[in-house]
């Protein structure tokens, strides 16, 4: 009896060990193959992704809504009425966007709207405060999220000085047109936080972010660390501002005013 049990345990142990080795080998093989395929594909890479928005060209509700629609369709962002809404990209006035209103401002500017989105800060407070690393910084400067690790504590929402984050207070799929879902991107479940991800999933397939694609050139996306990139060219040629620079978060979204 005892003998058999011992043998059984030995067998079980060996089997478990064998399975571990096999699965580890499998994982290695898969990741190796995966990277090979990705190198063949035209994956967009950068040291520091950034965006320059020509605010003179996107200044009305309609133009910004076009961008938001493209973004929200690409990422299955639900349209929830009320104050528990979810938005990745949206329109805001100069004062809401930059909280540095001048007296007697240029009327055009005063009436202008500006597209707002996650700034993918270099020193992102949301990354700093997240207790599970569900929000993390990628090597290319993008602040990304793991929706399956997020516990929904919303510390990142308190931490973000730009109001860029939304929480799924309710089941988001109830507010999505399930027939029109983008199957390439997951929907979320209730109880997790989400925000703009600079379209990491599209970059991985060599595509520009959805809002950039929809902007007809008004939004430019590129590598901030490359002096020859188009974003650097625009920054050289235009006066640009960023939101709340005094907080030292180093936003990666620039506005040509």
């Amino acid at each position: 009896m005892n003998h058999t049990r011992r043998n059984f345990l030995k067998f079980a142990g060996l089997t478990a060990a064998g399975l571990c080795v096999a699965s580890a080998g499998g994982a290695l093989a898969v990741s190796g193959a995966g990277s090979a395929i990705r190198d063949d594909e035209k994956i967009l890479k950068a040291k520091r992704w950034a965006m320059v928005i020509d605010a003179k060209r996107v200044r009305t509700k309609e133009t910004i809504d076009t961008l938001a629609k493209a973004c929200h369709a690409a990422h299955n962002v639900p349209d929830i009425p009320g104050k528990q809404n979810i938005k990745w990209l949206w329109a805001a006035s100069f004062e809401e966007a930059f909280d540095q209103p001048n007296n007697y401002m240029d009327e055009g500017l005063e009436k202008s709207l500006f597209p707002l989105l996650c700034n993918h800060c270099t020193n992102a407070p949301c990354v700093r405060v997240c207790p599970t690393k569900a929000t993390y910084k990628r090597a290319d400067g993008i602040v990304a999220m793991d929706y399956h690790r997020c516990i929904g504590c919303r510390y990142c929402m308190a931490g973000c000085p730009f109001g860029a984050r939304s929480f799924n207070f309710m089941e988001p799929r109830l507010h999505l047109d399930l027939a029109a879902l983008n199957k390439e991107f997951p929907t979320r479940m209730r109880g997790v936080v989400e925000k703009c991800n600079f379209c990491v999933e599209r970059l991985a397939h060599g595509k520009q972010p959805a809002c950039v694609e929809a902007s007809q050139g008004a939004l430019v996306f590129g590598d901030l660390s490359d002096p020859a990139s188009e974003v650097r060219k625009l920054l050289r040629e235009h006066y640009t501002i960023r939101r709340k620079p005094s907080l030292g978060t180093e936003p990666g979204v620039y506005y040509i005013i």
Partner: protein
Amino acid sequence: MLEKALKGSPKYYIWIGFLLLVILGGSGIYLMQLMQGLTITGMSRDVSWGFYIAQFTYLVGLAASGVMIVLPYYFHHYKKFKDLVIFGEFMAIGAVVMCLGFIVVDIGQPQRMLNVLLFPTPNSILFWDMVVLNGYLILNVVVGWTCLEADRQHLPHPKWSKTLAYVSIVWAFSIHTVTAFLYQGLPGRHYWLTAILAARFLASAFCSGPAILLLVIMLTQKVSTFKANVEGVATLAKIITYAMVVNVFFFLLEVFTAFYSGIPGHMHSIVYLFKGVDGHAELVPFMWTAATLGIGSLCLLIPPKLRDNLKILPWSLAILVIATWIDKGLGLLIGGFNPTPFETIAPYWPTGKELIVSLMIYAIGALVVTILFKVATEVKEETGASQKEAVPAEN
């Protein structure tokens, strides 16, 4: 010792039954929240923390309060607190249980909560808050229970329990400091972004916490044979008074800095809370109530004649508790989120369901405190320590 909580008067059973009913009723609403999400609360995209986290913050203060008894007893050998020490420690247990409860109900995906342990992230203050709160809970359970057991057997307290008690004293300061750090390290939330926030948290904890503790001890005296040392009570009232003076002083420092510098970001939240902004004045009556009651409590606590009058003292403590609760349980959170990052005002008010779930947590805390206090008073009765008959000359 826990068996002592099983035997009690009919009134005791009615009270326990009532608490269980409240917990049961509240858990129904909590189940609803689990199934529908936090949409049943009044929270929003702009005010993403609400009543739950505010209660958590307030109760960390209550948890830290026991140290105002434990510290003089262990560090200064102030023997008149001897019979109160166990209540301070047991109150801390109940308070930390409520704190943890309020965090659990606030989380959107509670079943993933252990991710905080699976992926420990030392750069997150929430990770440290988890560490210090649970550590403080364990410390108080171990020290409190061991010392009470030793008392019951007429044995001296083991030496290691004294060492742990010293650790718990320093630890008590850490729980409220770390909880303040949750808030005060966030860029762009001006009301919280102030170096004095942790000090304010401690000051308000050390007045409101012992005030609640003293009120509960007074109640305990009514329903049991326990009688606290009158001089000890007077000293605790004095400590509460000093802490409240410091608390009010620290708040006035904030007011000075904001309004003398005239920097809009610093003034904005305070103006919203006390005057209203853009037609939004939801909290104004509450904040002025808090201010009035706060000053009122000081008027009743500072003169020794009024403070030492045991008929007036409960009232002074009660209005102090209301004042500090409005300040920290409502104003701190709502004022911190308003104005929003877009310089707008997003009014927040808890929903009925949110309040019922909160009531459930408060009932759980009350149940824990009732059971622990029941055990403690029974042991004291058994050993004949601090009994009403033993000190007939007082009062």
